[in-house]
């Protein structure tokens, strides 16, 4: 039977409610999302330049965008730059991956087992509030100045948020869906696999996003404190620029850190939006 015919069968006032909207074209959506950002960037650069022109600090301490942006551009053609970014990103991804595994396992065991929850649930939240930089003295004592010290702190920074996100996701699964899941024959592991975990996804994505922010901050702190020999990284380059009082380079590297942060945050936001759109959690009027 053709689709149209089926739609005829769906008569009743109710059929009017069904959503058949068309999304606006890809380019107009991209433009609608881009121009406010470009505008904000323009305002930011203008404000920065105005402060420099006002002469609040000498220009060798606070250089303007006209000095910094060309330095940033030059950096892009230096092999050392990409090596430093590569090493930092590798640390970030490795640390984050370990944190995701540990955080998810912790989250599941807290959500599933009452005794685990009462034992460590509050502690995990407490860990989340602990500034990661406070871990470094201990990390250095345990692992000396090494990759493992950085890894240790990145994982400790990110895992609690990821675990908490999963726990709150599981806690907020609507009871009706649980009932429906049991009714269609999902039990035990099957209930987790097919109902509870998918239903917990929005909370988990929130936790993943927050976990990433913590991992990235911990890593930047770590790279400033734990400088591993012969391994250029964003943090070590930043420290290098400070030691040489090269403010242009310093700010150029800060812009790099900011840019990476924004790009990754945008990826998480996109994932979250896609999820909410597929689930129908976005009101049509505000879409």
């Amino acid at each position: 039977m053709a689709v149209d015919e089926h739609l005829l069968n769906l008569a009743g006032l109710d059929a009017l409610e069904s959503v058949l909207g068309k999304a606006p074209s890809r380019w107009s959506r991209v433009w609608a999302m881009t121009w406010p950002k470009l505008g904000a960037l323009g305002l930011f650069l203008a404000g920065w330049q105005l402060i420099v022109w006002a002469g609040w600090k000498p220009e060798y301490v606070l250089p303007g965008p006209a000095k910094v942006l060309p330095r940033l551009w030059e950096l892009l053609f230096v092999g050392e730059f990409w090596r430093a970014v590569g090493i930092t990103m590798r640390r970030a991804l490795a640390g984050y991956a370990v944190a995701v595994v540990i955080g998810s396992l912790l989250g599941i065991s807290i959500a599933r087992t009452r005794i685990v929850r009462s034992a460590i649930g509050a502690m995990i939240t407490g860990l989340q509030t602990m500034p990661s930089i406070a871990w470094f003295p201990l990390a250095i004592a345990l692992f000396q100045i090494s990759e493992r010290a950085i890894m240790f702190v990145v994982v400790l920074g990110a895992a609690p948020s990821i675990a908490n996100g999963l726990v709150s996701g599981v806690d907020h699964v609507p009871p009706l869906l649980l009932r429906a899941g049991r009714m269609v024959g999902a039990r035990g592991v099957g209930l987790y696999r097919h109902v509870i975990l998918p239903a917990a996804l929005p909370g988990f994505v929130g936790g993943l996003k927050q976990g990433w922010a913590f991992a990235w901050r911990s890593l930047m702190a770590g790279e400033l404190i734990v400088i591993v020999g012969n391994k250029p990284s964003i943090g070590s380059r930043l420290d290098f620029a400070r030691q040489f009082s090269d403010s242009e380079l310093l700010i150029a590297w800060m812009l790099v850190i900011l840019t990476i942060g924004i790009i990754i945050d945008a990826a998480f936001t996109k994932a979250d939006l896609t999820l909410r759109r597929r689930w129908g959690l976005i009101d049509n009027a505000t879409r």
Partner: protein
Amino acid sequence: MTTVAAPVGIDDPITGAAIALRSVSKAFGHGADAVVALDGIDLAVGRGEFVCVVGASGCGKSTALNLMAGLDRPTLGEVEVDGRPALMFQEAALFPWLDVLDNVALPMRLKGVGKGERRGRASELLDKVHLGGQGHRRPHELSGGMRQRVALARSLAQDADILLMDEPFGALDAMTRDLLHDELESVWSGSGLTVVFVTHNVREAARLADRIVLLTSRPGRVAATFEVEIPRPRRIDSPEVSGLAAKVTDRLREEVRRHGSR
């Protein structure tokens, strides 16, 4: 139409009971705070029978369904269910992370039916509830009536032979509800499905049921049973259905009044 004061015998020789409740009581809470939802209910539902359970709010209709579905246990008495029950709620309770087809296919997936087979079977079921070609859509894109159709298909996908429905059309507009009555009737007729349909809408009960069971409220007891002998297909606005509905409503009012004066 005949009115029978007591429930129909449990060992009905012709049909054989698919569901039997014997002196079933259910209380929630303990001691002085305990609320008795059901108080000594006797009810038998024959195989292939369509029974509507009607009563004022708080009469334990949903509790009775949960007991039949095996989601809860009685405080006293016995619940015997001979068959595989599926439960439908007032909300469709579809899974938002799955499209319509996968929602219908999930019960089969949980049983380990292969992908091709369960998809094929799921789209047959969607055809049956007049949602053919809609399998790729997401639950939130559907109207309330369409969602209940998907929920019905999902219940059928459980290979259930007993359909327990808890005010499934309560949230729909009258026109859509009438359409769904026709569809439910056509799915049920000749399928051998046993249906227990809980509603507070007396006309709906008269439109659909072979037998209407009237429950009193707090504690829930069987107040009366009405055999419905109006030939099918029926119309909800036909004089016969309206007449029966009026009769049931009178009896219901009597119960409410009696309950109020107690």
